């Protein structure tokens, strides 16, 4: 009987190790400093310096987790999504690879005959009204809601056809779940209503360089003055 007890305990311990993949949250923190003598209790600082009380040099906490600030992803950032996407150039990326530029995003599907051409026109219209010299600070992203049909080849053809093939345009093919998750992050609705058609919300989203949602324009052919104003503020 003793043996069985030991075995059960052993299995119990084994079990405790099981947890979901990605269970340990990644530590994206910037460097934190504290007084080695803890004169001020648990108070920490974001930069090095001296303790106000004992004047000792502040010590960095958990040096190993330190990363450059540029790597920091805020709680509201869409860069928290870790799904993979394929671009029209057949490159596999994650959303955080788009970091550092103001993002203008829309969800479409290329076989769409009704709303999407107008949404695409709205995107081009917005692009045209923005200063050329700031192009390198922004990125226009069109995400397909029909990942089965919209392969990289289809997306590339669509990009060429609509003269949206320059550097600052990117088309993304995701997975079914990835697209659903992405849509939910931007509070977008869509439904496949037949094998070739979807109904979907017409929303253009503006995100800052950190991937945080700043503005959404809803509807087709609406006055995009406010959207352009927001983008200009961001790319300045």
């Amino acid at each position, binding site marked *: 009987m003793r043996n069985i007890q030991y*075995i059960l305990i052993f299995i119990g311990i084994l079990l405790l190790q099981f947890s979901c993949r990605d269970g340990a949250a990644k530590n994206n923190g910037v460097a934190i400093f504290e007084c080695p003598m803890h004169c001020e209790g648990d108070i920490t600082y974001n930069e090095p310096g001296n303790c106000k009380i004992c004047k000792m040099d502040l010590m960095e906490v958990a040096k190993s987790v330190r990363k450059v600030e540029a790597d920091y992803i805020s709680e509201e950032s869409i860069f*928290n999504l870790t799904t993979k996407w394929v671009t029209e150039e057949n490159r596999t990326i994650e959303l955080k690879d788009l970091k550092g530029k103001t993002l203008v995003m829309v969800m479409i599907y290329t076989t769409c005959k009704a709303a999407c051409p107008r949404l695409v026109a709205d995107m081009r219209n917005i692009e045209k009204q923005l200063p050329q010299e700031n192009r390198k600070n922004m990125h226009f992203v069109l995400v397909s809601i029909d990942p089965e049909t919209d392969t990289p080849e289809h997306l590339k053809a669509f990009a060429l056809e609509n003269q949206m093939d320059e550097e600052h345009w990117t088309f993304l093919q995701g997975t079914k779940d990835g697209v*659903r998750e992405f*849509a939910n*992050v931007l509070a977008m*609705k869509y439904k496949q*209503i037949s094998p070739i058609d979807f109904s979907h919300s017409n929303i253009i989203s503006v995100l800052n360089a950190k991937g945080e949602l700043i503005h959404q324009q*809803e509807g*087709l052919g609406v006055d995009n003055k406010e959207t352009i104003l927001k983008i200009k503020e961001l790319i300045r």
Partner: protein
Amino acid sequence: MPINKEHISSVNKAIVRWGICFVLFWTTHADCQSKMAFITGGTYVPLYGRDSLQVTISNFFMDVYPITNEEFVAFVRKNPKWKKSKAKKLFVDGNYLVQWKSDIELDSSQNLKAPVTSISWFAAIAYCDCQGKRLPTVDEWEYVAMANENLADARPLKTYNQFILSWYEKPKTYNNSIGSTFKNYWGVYDLHGLVWEWTSDFNSVLVSGESRKDVDKDSNLFCGSAAIGATDLMNYAAFMRYAIRGSSKAKYTMRNLGFRCVKDKN
């Protein structure tokens, strides 16, 4: 030193026992993870369908009960990033697990065996994913939920609709234990009577058409025009569910919105 035969045989026995335990453990564990009912697929006409009206459902397994508070406590213990204090704002609103006393403790008024609520779609997805399962689609959920005790599709029955509507009038059913409502045709409990449940593609419900502009406020839930397009205008109970889905966002949490998981048949 002479080798002790008894010792060897006891070691052998231990190995055998260990093996048996391990095998037993996996079979029982797979079972106790949470009971699932087998759902035979079929076609039906949901309240809001596609162009062809008929929807086809494949065979799948569904959790017999909604996920409980107790189960969710165990989940956040193992997955600290879903603790109330750690969950990212992209994935949950400010009311995530709002009643919980701490990251791993319920409030004393909460029932451990009651369905977990105040969780977002993202949290529900993560939970099911962790179990090797997924959330049901709207069509799958509605397919199982149209059953009463004896019929796979009880929607034409007055008693079926009355039960759901009378539940809508009862306050605080979210704190009742799982299994306290009826066992339906498929052997699934509590689809009606305790809480509403998340579905994987809840954001496919465009109650009012192209723009979401007029579906983001509670006042629009009762908008009569939204029922146009429904296949059964009398099915007010189901209409309410679609209206809730149409007005939800994935990071929203609600006191009376929980979830359960499903699994494909291989």
